[in-house]
């Protein structure tokens, strides 16, 4: 069965949406085939479907046409069965069964760190985000962020300015920009690197979409750095998700003025840092997979 049909079968499965999305990632990975899972679901639904044509083939070809239209717009679909699906994301339990990508995701983007923080950031916070992005680029890391105003924008633009790679993970479909002011930056990152979304291309922003996006951002990367963030922020949420993924979290020391960050800094795998070099040194050590020392 061609790979395109597998992608189309997964799109068809998700369009019909009988189960939670995340479950389809498991089902499809376990079966090694989305077509097999779709056939199973259609069989359960329709029983003797062959009397009425072949609903599986029909749904696959409808979805294949959708994928083709997306592709003409510059949006690629990457499913868990696709070799191009982001490597680190495979390692987390709540990975989405597929992601959309505008631009070009490279294999080297697996060497990446997420830099996140507040939308209304202080000059000190913006400066920290910029120097962290610069250090990451200098050590060959891709800088991943969420394309929000403030810290996210500083991280993205600083990575681009020093000739590095940056990937934006957004909380809407790829056809949308939120907030709208960031549309130009979104286009630029798609043109030079990649923008990733786990949502259908037209999906609007919602209360639920941003935390879901934070989980994908954590999953895509080797570690999460929180630069500046209040108690209720998505960045704090992402820090929690990263620890639940077994990925280290770095808190910029100035965050310790917040009660949540002081509490958080006590958790295992959390590092409070004052210099960007500490991040790259620790991430490089933790992800060198050769051997272990006592």
């Amino acid at each position, binding site marked *: 069965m061609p790979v395109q049909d597998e992608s189309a079968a997964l799109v068809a499965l998700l369009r019909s949406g009988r189960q939670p999305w995340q479950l389809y990632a498991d089902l499809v990975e376990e079966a090694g085939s989305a077509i097999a899972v779709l056939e199973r679901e259609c069989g359960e639904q329709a029983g003797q479907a062959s009397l009425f044509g072949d609903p599986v083939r029909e749904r696959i070809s409808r979805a294949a046409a959708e994928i083709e239209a997306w592709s003409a717009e510059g949006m690629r679909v990457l499913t868990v069965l696709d070799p191009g699906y982001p490597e680190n994301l495979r*390692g*987390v*339990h709540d990975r989405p069964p597929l992601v959309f990508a505008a631009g070009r995701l490279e294999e080297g983007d697996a060497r990446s760190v997420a830099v996140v923080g507040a939308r209304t950031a202080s000059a000190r916070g913006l400066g920290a985000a910029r120097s962290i992005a610069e250090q990451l680029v200098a050590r060959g890391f891709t800088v991943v962020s969420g394309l929000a105003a403030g810290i996210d924008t500083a991280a993205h633009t600083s990575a681009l300015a020093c000739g590095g790679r940056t990937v934006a993970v957004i909380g809407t479909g790829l056809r949308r920009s939120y907030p709208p002011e960031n549309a130009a930056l979104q286009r630029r990152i798609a043109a030079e690197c990649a923008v990733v979304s786990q949502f259908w291309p037209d999906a609007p922003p919602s209360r639920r979409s941003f935390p879901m996006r934070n989980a994908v951002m954590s999953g895509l990367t080797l570690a999460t750095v929180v630069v500046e963030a209040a108690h209720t922020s998505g960045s704090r949420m992402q820090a929690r998700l990263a*620890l*639940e993924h077994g990925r280290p979290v770095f808190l910029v020391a100035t965050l310790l003025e917040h009660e949540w960050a002081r509490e958080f800094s006590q958790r295992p795998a959390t590092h409070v840092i004052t210099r960007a070099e500490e991040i790259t040194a620790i991430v490089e*050590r933790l992800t060198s997979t050769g*051997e272990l*020392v006592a």
Partner: protein
Amino acid sequence: MPTVAELSGLYSNFMMGPRPGPDVCTQCFNFTEGFPRCYACTHGESWLDTVVPISYSVAREQLHHALAGYKRLDGEVARRLEVELAAVLWRYLAAHERCVARASGGERFELVTTVPSSDRARDERHPLRRVVGELCGPTRDRHERLLRRSAAAVPERAFSAEKFEPARPLEGHSVLLIDDTWTTGANAQSAAAALRRGGAGRIAAVVIGRHLNREWRHNDRRLRGLARPFDWSRCAVHSDPDA
């Protein structure tokens, strides 16, 4: 190179250590409701002297994903999961192998081996042997592939004394059997039966994850009652380090 403590520390935030208690299976640490043993352990065969799960592994949560992923995935992410799981096993055994040995009536284990896969083809390249035999410091010098999947046609998930065969006579040696996951215990008990047939002495199993579904009965409440983050100084068989 990462240290064992920092790599295993990445798992501290989601690992959940089993503890003995009135509603906990005395063999496999499954949650029960007032019974000394869970259903599978009551009705299944018991060839192991001791079973010690390092953590609970909850279906579709991160430890479960790691325990499935290091076998199912390939490439860089699978290698990273292997090393992380080796770090978990290393840190745990360095601190608690003696607890496990004492629970089975000894001081240590002479040999270490892994539970083979039920599937012969899959067993030929089982990454658990790399974890136990190469990456994990406390086990690698004592590790030996003591069991093979036999040619007998037996159900994959059921107990069978014929499923595995010993590779050599074991002459009363004590054996520490390692597996990634314990669900019903059928595979580990089958492996223990084969070791016994080969002449092994004491046999204990250490498994990384005792598999559970959060939705089953009161499991969610029971799991939320466990201490977090994971406490590496304690284990399921001798919870009080000073005892």
